[in-house]
């Protein structure tokens, strides 16, 4: 009886999941790939014939500069997220269970507000006559307001703020699964704290680290509104180039090609992630 009841439910779920993937993941990506090999057309955006001009354009030194700058900002963001997120996730896994749930809940609460709105809030804090400068001046730490808004630093702060939870959550998952018996065994066999950290904890949490990097690095290169709002539209990310090409220059093939380049970079990271998992073994032994 139960299995009969479950069958239609299972089918419905499978149809939903596959339908979702087909129409909202596969189709848009195929459209992007299609657009990237077509020719730019001022009237209809894209037209035949097929060609690879858009990809050739990617190797223009200008866009290499943008890509490297983007990569630099995204790498800084990822490193800072890792530096904050790693100890955070570790500490999180040590607090009592019921408090863990509360803390994770608090971590997720900001997602209920649109990220654009939160970025504007950050702008109010960082502005020359904003909250932070006023607070620092009123306690006498500085006499002159600091210029924080519209700098590279402001963009990185914004990216870290938006993406930190994506680093913490996968790290929390691996710390939560960290087997105490292995740590005890390491200790019993005479390893010090540092040796245990380097030889046991780091390798065992590496999949979480890589998952976190994947979830932070790539989005950090694409969040075009952060440099627009906090960087004064001066620090271009790959995401800004994609947006400009689609809207201002109306060069859809090139915008699509740049977007595919980001997807390929993501695929590369996922490949590295799988390799590392295979090396350590799925169950952490």
């Amino acid at each position, binding site marked *: 009886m139960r299995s009969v009841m479950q069958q239609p439910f299972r089918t419905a779920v499978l149809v939903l999941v596959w339908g979702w993937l087909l129409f909202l993941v596969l189709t848009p990506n195929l459209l992007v790939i299609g657009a990237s090999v077509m020719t730019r057309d*001022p*009237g209809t*955006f894209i037209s035949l014939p097929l060609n690879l001009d858009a990809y050739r354009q990617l190797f223009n030194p*200008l866009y290499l*500069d*943008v890509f490297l*700058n983007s990569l630099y900002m995204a790498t800084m963001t990822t490193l800072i997220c890792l530096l904050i997120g790693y100890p955070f996730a570790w500490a999180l896994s040590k607090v009592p269970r019921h408090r863990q749930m509360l803390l994770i809940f608090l971590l997720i609460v900001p997602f209920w507000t*649109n990220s*654009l*709105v939160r970025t*504007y809030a950050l702008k109010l804090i960082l*502005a*020359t*006559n*904003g909250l932070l400068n006023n607070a620092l001046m009123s306690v006498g730490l500085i006499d002159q*307001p600091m*210029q924080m*808004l*519209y700098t590279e630093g402001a963009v990185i702060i914004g990216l870290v703020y938006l993406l930190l939870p994506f680093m913490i959550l996968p790290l929390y998952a691996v710390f939560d699964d960290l087997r105490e018996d292995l740590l005890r065994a390491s200790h019993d066999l005479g390893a010090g704290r540092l040796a245990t950290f380097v030889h046991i904890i780091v390798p065992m949490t590496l999949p979480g680290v890589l998952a976190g990097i994947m979830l932070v690095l790539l989005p950090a290169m694409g969040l075009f*509104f952060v440099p*627009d709002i906090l960087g*004064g*539209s*001066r620090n*271009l990310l790959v995401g*800004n*180039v994609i947006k*400009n*090409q*689609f*809207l*201002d*220059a*109306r*060069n859809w093939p090139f915008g699509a090609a740049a977007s595919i380049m980001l997807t390929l970079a993501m695929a590369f990271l996922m490949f590295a992630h799988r390799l590392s998992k295979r090396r350590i073994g799925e169950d952490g032994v």
Partner: protein
Amino acid sequence: MKKLALAGILAVGLTGCGSDDPQVLNLYNWSEYMPQEVLERFTEETGIQVVYTTYDSNEAMYARLKLLDESAAYDLAVPSTYYVSKMRQEDLLMPIDRSKIEGFDNLDPELVNLDIDPDNQYSVPYLWGTTGLAVDTSDVDGEVTAWADLWDERFEGRVMLTNDMREVFHVGLRVLGYSGNSTDPQEIEEAYEKLSELMPSVRTFNSDAPRMPYLEGEADVGMIWNGEAVMGKDTMPSLEYVYPEEGIIAWLDSFVIPKNAPNPEAAHQFINFVLQPEISALISEDIGYATPNLAGRDVLDDAVANDRSSYPSATDMINAEFQEDIGDDALQIYAKYWEMLKSGR
């Protein structure tokens, strides 16, 4: 307030439930370009609900209208000067039925029947304005009278430009003595070279609300739209609007009805409503741009009518240049240098 993506999200969310209902007008307008009071009074008078969506560039508006052409998402949009001719030529617009527009004859004869739309078959002027120099006189010593003054090294790190490719290059071209509508690759490249000398001074680009960086204390001098300058001066009296010697950038924004508008009747009603002298005056007083409606100008508050920022004198308009369509080839050249300018370090 409109904010880039937020507007997009609203547009997707709201048009879905709005387009089938005949008592809804889907209005797609520039951000901070229509007082809320006007929308409320329109609804009060006609019973038509207004779904208001905003954009911050002609490019964004054009791309969305072009893509949503089939799904008939908007009844009314407000493109600038040369986008009217572009959209007209691409058959994106519906002719306007002049018999339903009572106040048309009140419009300034200088601002109708232009090359962008002969006989105004597809467009009705809404507001016109200029892009000039903003100077925060409390932080700037000495005179600022020309675009070229922005290159002065005393303004290092204190300059703001609009986040608008055409306007920024317009400034570069004018400083070199060329037309702001140049299509000559050589001239555009020279303008890029000139503008890249300015880049170290540039603190931010903003077309969201160009008065804000001045009010926030982030910038002291730079570009601004005249209406933004008027609104900004209300908050910060030291913000002055200056007509640069090389010539101001002028533009005219017009109502157009997209070809597949679901409710063109309401769109006509709205244009008609705005053309009432009293409403035109209210809009101009509230947001600081100039109304092309001469009957509206007659009933303007004196302070606004005499404000040179909103209503420039004939001498202010010497060397003024309207933006024109530069064609797709030139657009690509501008776009390339624009990205070089922004990524240059």
